[in-house]
């Protein structure tokens, strides 16, 4: 399959972030204009207040109520990042984009109305230092935290949209303040050349589409009616996919990690060396019936055959329900002669003695582990908490100490491979 997209990505490496008045980048330090960002966020009447704080790696700082994280990006020239949310409707993945590396805009908030049932924004914690920093990849970047206060009179669904737009707009604004800065690196992402002597690898990229608070957006639209489809890796890297998944924290694939998907990053780096990056198939996870799961996974396997894939790497988002969709896709790809590797978290119980997988197929003989979601982590007392004073549900003082299940560690077992845990036999 021809892959005509070419994306030029300019990277400015940020090694320090400060709050101040003189917005922009100087000597690797990003200055965030608090007044300007506050005004930008509060343009939306659904948001009653915002506190902006920086959480840096190595600080005795804890962030709570994390909803989404976004890397600052802006298009150079025509177009906008995150079309469907910002700017006009178009596709991305071509032209030029500027990114600020090492920074995330991390939005943290409670919701205005109480939740009931499964689909609710759940606690999500990041520790920036100490032994517990390994439980979130966001301990390794500087986070510009937008701690929001909702307008109490609006409904949760409406506020949900406000949260998303606040983080996306801030991310685009911050990158824009550095638009005149010379990039540290410029890389052209282009997979048009395919070496016929190398195996073709496709990436099966399953997105969570379960309902409000557990939705992923493709060009501004939820994916409930999505059948598996092809998307260019550059589109993913350039903002086509935005997260609205605010349920269990350890499983979330935030927007930042769609923009920096480690699987796509790895495959693009190896393209033309020991494999061809043959494309990306996106798929809705959490299909509601067996028939829909079968339909979707057969369809994904069929697409992988259409593009002549020899091998596939599969990732998902969420727990047991989504594991079934992914494992079925693995099964049907293998049955079509496409070799697979599956990325999975483990659920062997708090003591680790149970069988670690929710659902397996006999064909899933190559599984990469991202660690246990069932462990309980002792969280120390910290000096500073951003985002809220107490944890959701339990209302435990967020300053610590307390015990916290892995479920509530932000991207602790990230299925795109952003974190550093692996399940091992002890």
């Amino acid at each position: 399959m021809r892959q005509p997209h070419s994306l030029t990505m300019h990277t400015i490496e940020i090694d320090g972030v400060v709050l101040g008045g003189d917005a922009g980048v100087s000597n690797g330090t990003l200055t965030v204009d608090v007044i300007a960002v506050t005004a930008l966020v509060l343009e939306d009447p659904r948001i009653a207040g915002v506190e902006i704080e920086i959480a840096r790696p190595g600080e005795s700082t804890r962030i709570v109520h994390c909803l989404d994280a976004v890397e600052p990006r802006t298009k150079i020239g025509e177009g906008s990042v995150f079309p469907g949310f910002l700017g006009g409707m178009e596709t991305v993945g071509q032209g030029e984009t500027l990114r600020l590396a090492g920074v995330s805009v991390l939005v943290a908030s409670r919701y205005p109305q109480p939740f009931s049932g499964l689909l609710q924004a759940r606690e999500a914690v990041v520790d920036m230092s100490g032994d517990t920093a390994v439980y979130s990849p966001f301990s390794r970047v500087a986070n510009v935290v937008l701690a929001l206060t909702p307008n109490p009179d609006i409904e949760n669904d409406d506020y949900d949209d406000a949260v998303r737009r606040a983080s996306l707009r801030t991310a685009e604004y911050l990158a824009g303040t550095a638009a005149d800065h010379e990039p540290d690196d410029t890389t052209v992402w282009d997979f048009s050349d395919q070496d016929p002597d190398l195996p073709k690898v496709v990436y099966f990229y399953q997105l969570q589409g379960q309902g409000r608070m557990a939705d992923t957006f493709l060009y501004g639209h939820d994916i409930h009616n999505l059948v598996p489809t092809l998307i260019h890796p550059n589109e993913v890297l350039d903002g086509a996919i935005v997260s609205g998944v605010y349920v269990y924290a350890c499983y979330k694939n935030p927007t930042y990690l769609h923009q920096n998907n480690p699987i796509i990053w790895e495959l693009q780096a190896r393209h033309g060396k020991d494999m061809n990056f043959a494309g990306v198939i996106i798929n809705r996870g959490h299909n509601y019936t067996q028939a829909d799961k079968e339909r979707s996974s057969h369809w994904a396997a069929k697409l992988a055959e259409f593009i002549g894939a020899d091998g596939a790497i599969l990732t998902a988002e969420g727990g047991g329900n989504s594991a079934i969709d992914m494992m079925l896709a693995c099964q049907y790809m293998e049955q079509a002669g496409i070799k697979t590797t599956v990325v999975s978290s483990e659920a062997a119980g708090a003591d680790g003695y149970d069988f670690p997988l929710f659902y397996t197929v006999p064909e899933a003989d190559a599984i990469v582990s991202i660690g246990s979601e069932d462990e309980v982590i002792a969280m120390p007392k910290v000096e500073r908490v951003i985002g809220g004073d107490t944890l959701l549900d339990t209302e435990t003082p967020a300053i610590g100490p307390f015990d916290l299940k892995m479920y509530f560690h932000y991207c602790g077992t990230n299925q795109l491979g952003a974190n550093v845990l692996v399940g091992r036999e002890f």
Partner: protein
Amino acid sequence: MVRIAHYINQFFAGIGGEEKADAPFEVRDGAVGPGRAIEMALGAEGEIIQTLVCGDNSFHADAEANIEAVIASLGRSKPDLLIAGPAFNAGRYGLACGAVCAAVSERLGIPTITGLFPEAPAVDVYRSRTVMVPTGDSAAGMKGAVEVLVRTGMRLAQGEQLRPADVDGRIPMGFRRSWVTDIPVAHRATEMLLAKLRGDAFASEVALPEGAEAIPPAAAVAELSSATIALVTEGGLVPEDNPDRIESSSATKWARYPISMLERNENPSFKSIHAGYDSQWVDADPDRMVPLDALKALAAEGVIGGVHDYFYATTGTGTTVTHGERMGDEIAKQLISDGVHAVIVTST
């Protein structure tokens, strides 16, 4: 200086072979037999303060009393570590080492370690209750076995955390835990895939299950029209105040509630506390999870004999197999004692 107690059998104590297997439990000061090799390996780091000796037959003839004697002795001497064996592939000796180590770890909180051939009978029995290092199958491998025992034992004595079994050079204890790696997931996944494509060997990081135990189907109900039918759900449907405090995920509890209470569905009304699905439809109408209205109608029509007076509920999300099987077994036994003939289960 780490203070170590050492457990050995009559053979390694120099008392004698099989003909002396009834030698009684005794405690000697200092190192005996392989304990001297252990002390050599320890150098100035530690010493063996006492050696516990028991004949293989006499240990098992009254294991309980011998273990009590070990506990009493070590309770007084308070060593930093107990080393047992190594017992290699020995049956009775290995089991004694395992039993002694398990009891000392669990009752005195003293770290314990033994050395066994990986296929020795004691491995499966005691692997989760004491640290074990692999040895050869006979005493010919004593030197290497002592080195690895001492190296890992000293880490335990100094209070260091366990590392993955292969990193520590231990026999796996049967549980899994997260570990920090510096090799990214994407790199491991790609390497594994390319190895698979080349036809090279690769190692999955999680092994697939052995085939699940097939449960033979229960005999069918002979006469529906006289059968009592019960309703069971893992959908987390409970009175709204959740009086039995069933967990919303990783459940360890189940409860039963009168169907008359569910029919009334007010004060209290029923809600789902299950944290694994969107409960709005079930909260609006619990019959969508526990189809009581339909079953009652079929009873009234004479299709079945009757509806059992209670429905049974737990939460099936993140629930471990161990707890799931236990709860299922408990529910089944309750249903049988109540004279239920068949069950309809609903699952999300």
